[in-house]
């Protein structure tokens, strides 16, 4: 199985979820993260104290899919998350060796 990790802009979450669901991916896990990259942050000033805020709010989506579905899933995410503007984010694919569905004990592809 493959773990697709995508860092996207927060307001794109709903579209990405819909795209994945449309393809039949029924599970995913989402984390609020902060990202640093080419997209530059901003400065905040609080009564004279200036803070450069380098990290921007992003959403991390993790979805584990069977090996064969990896490209399809990655493409769907890329398509839905793209605005063409800097800071759209990244997709990383890595391997998962073993999966368990806690409720039933099913494993691997059956557990997705």
């Amino acid at each position, binding site marked *: 199985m493959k773990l697709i990790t995508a860092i996207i802009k927060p*307001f794109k979450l*709903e579209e990405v979820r819909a795209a994945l669901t449309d393809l039949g991916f029924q599970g995913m896990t989402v984390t609020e993260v902060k990202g640093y990259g080419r997209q530059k942050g*901003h*400065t*905040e*000033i*609080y009564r004279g104290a200036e803070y450069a805020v380098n990290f921007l709010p992003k959403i991390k989506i993790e979805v584990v899919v069977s090996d064969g579905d990896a490209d399809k899933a990655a493409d769907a995410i890329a398509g839905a998350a793209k605005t063409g503007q800097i800071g759209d984010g990244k997709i990383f694919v890595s391997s998962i060796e073993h999966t368990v569905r806690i409720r039933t004990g099913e494993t691997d592809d059956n557990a997705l």
Partner: protein
Amino acid sequence: MSRALTRLGVPAAGALLALGTFALPAFAAAPVPAKGDTAFMFTATVLVLLMTIPGLALFYGGLVRSKNMLSVLMQVFAITCMMSIIWVVYGYSLAFTGGGSLNDWVGGLDKAFLRGVTPESTVATFSNGVVVPEYLYIAFQMTFACITPALIVGAFAERVKFGALMLFVILWATFIYFPMAHMVWYWAGPDAIGDAAKKVAEASGDAKKAAEVALAAVQADAGMLFKWGALDFAGGTVVHINAGIAGLVGALVIGRRVGYRREQMAPHSLTMTMIGAALLWVGWFGFNAGSNLEANGTAALAMMNTFVATAAAALAWMLAEWLEKGKPSLLGLVSGAIAGLVAVTPASGFAGPMGSIVLGLVSGVICFIACTGVKNALGYDDSLDVFGVHGVGGIVGAIGTAIVAAPAFGGTGILDYVAKPGEAVAGAYDIMGQLATQSKAVVVTLILSGVGSFIIFKVVDVIVGLRPEEQAEREGLDLTQHGERAYNS
């Protein structure tokens, strides 16, 4: 005999008016203020400020997304600051002095910069021979001038430029609010009328003729809606309908929020909204009872009405939602409370407690329908339901006042300052006539404020642009307009 009081003054019954040419100053010299009244009006003034900051700011702020929290707090707070300066510079004068040939519509500049006001100056109340310190009256009315434009911002929260809003508020206050306040609230006061009426009673022959002319002049020295006999105890037209329609117009001119109905826009902190609603309720006692200007039984009645109408409306909205959506929500409950507060505002010194409960129940249900059904059906984006609550609730209250004020329905009726000069006695009450008058006042307010606000919004849009870039709106107004975030860790 049921005690009665006209807030908007001279009963519609034209019979009470006579003709004459003698004019008295708006705030005739009068006995010294009672300390109890001074203490009372001090409290009332403080309470109305509390309604606005932090009350209204939190009520609204809790309902937006956290990225726009500060923008809302800032708008309300800055408007409060700006309006209070404008108020003492020329607003009070435009609202509460005679306006010469324009007197029907707006006052003059005699008291600009509070010229001539001293700690000894006093103003009339609604009882003969009772006055309060003018500085206190100015401060009390100032809080009304602060909260009214602040109410508007909820309608287009999360999508307006701060500078543009400030400019709008200055223009709106000058061209809509001060004139409206003058039209509804300016009059010569009970002693001026009483003194003139006394002269009529004492004179005979030609002198009587002259005295009658003088009395009529005194009575004519009032704003237009006041002269119509529109009842508005604490500001249903001037404050709520006025702000509600301005908000709706603003929401339409500015357009919907980016992502409206596609993205989640759930309130970021209903806790804050609840605090705000509670403080609005608490402070509204100052607003309504304070509008009596005197610490007496009518003030107590206004307090009682403000209490039970609010409670009834809150429960009504909650129950309507429970039936309709399956669950009673806190936001529904507190929205209902505000709807009730709005609706009871014009009626608070005229209705009886049972009439107020009915008014509350009705306004709770109608505003619920306006904010859920109607708004969704029409599809406009009044972010925080300024029109659905203040506009609609204000209209329900203004019209309903004609009914609940009727002595037949437990109300106090209206006062006649002429029949027994120097004393206010119950005047004749005509429900149908009053209904017509109230409706007319509502329509005038809707048109004046609606059209006026539209023009002002357009003007501001042309000059500085009302709306931030889409990208900035996405990022949130806190960062893009103010360079801050509400919450850090």
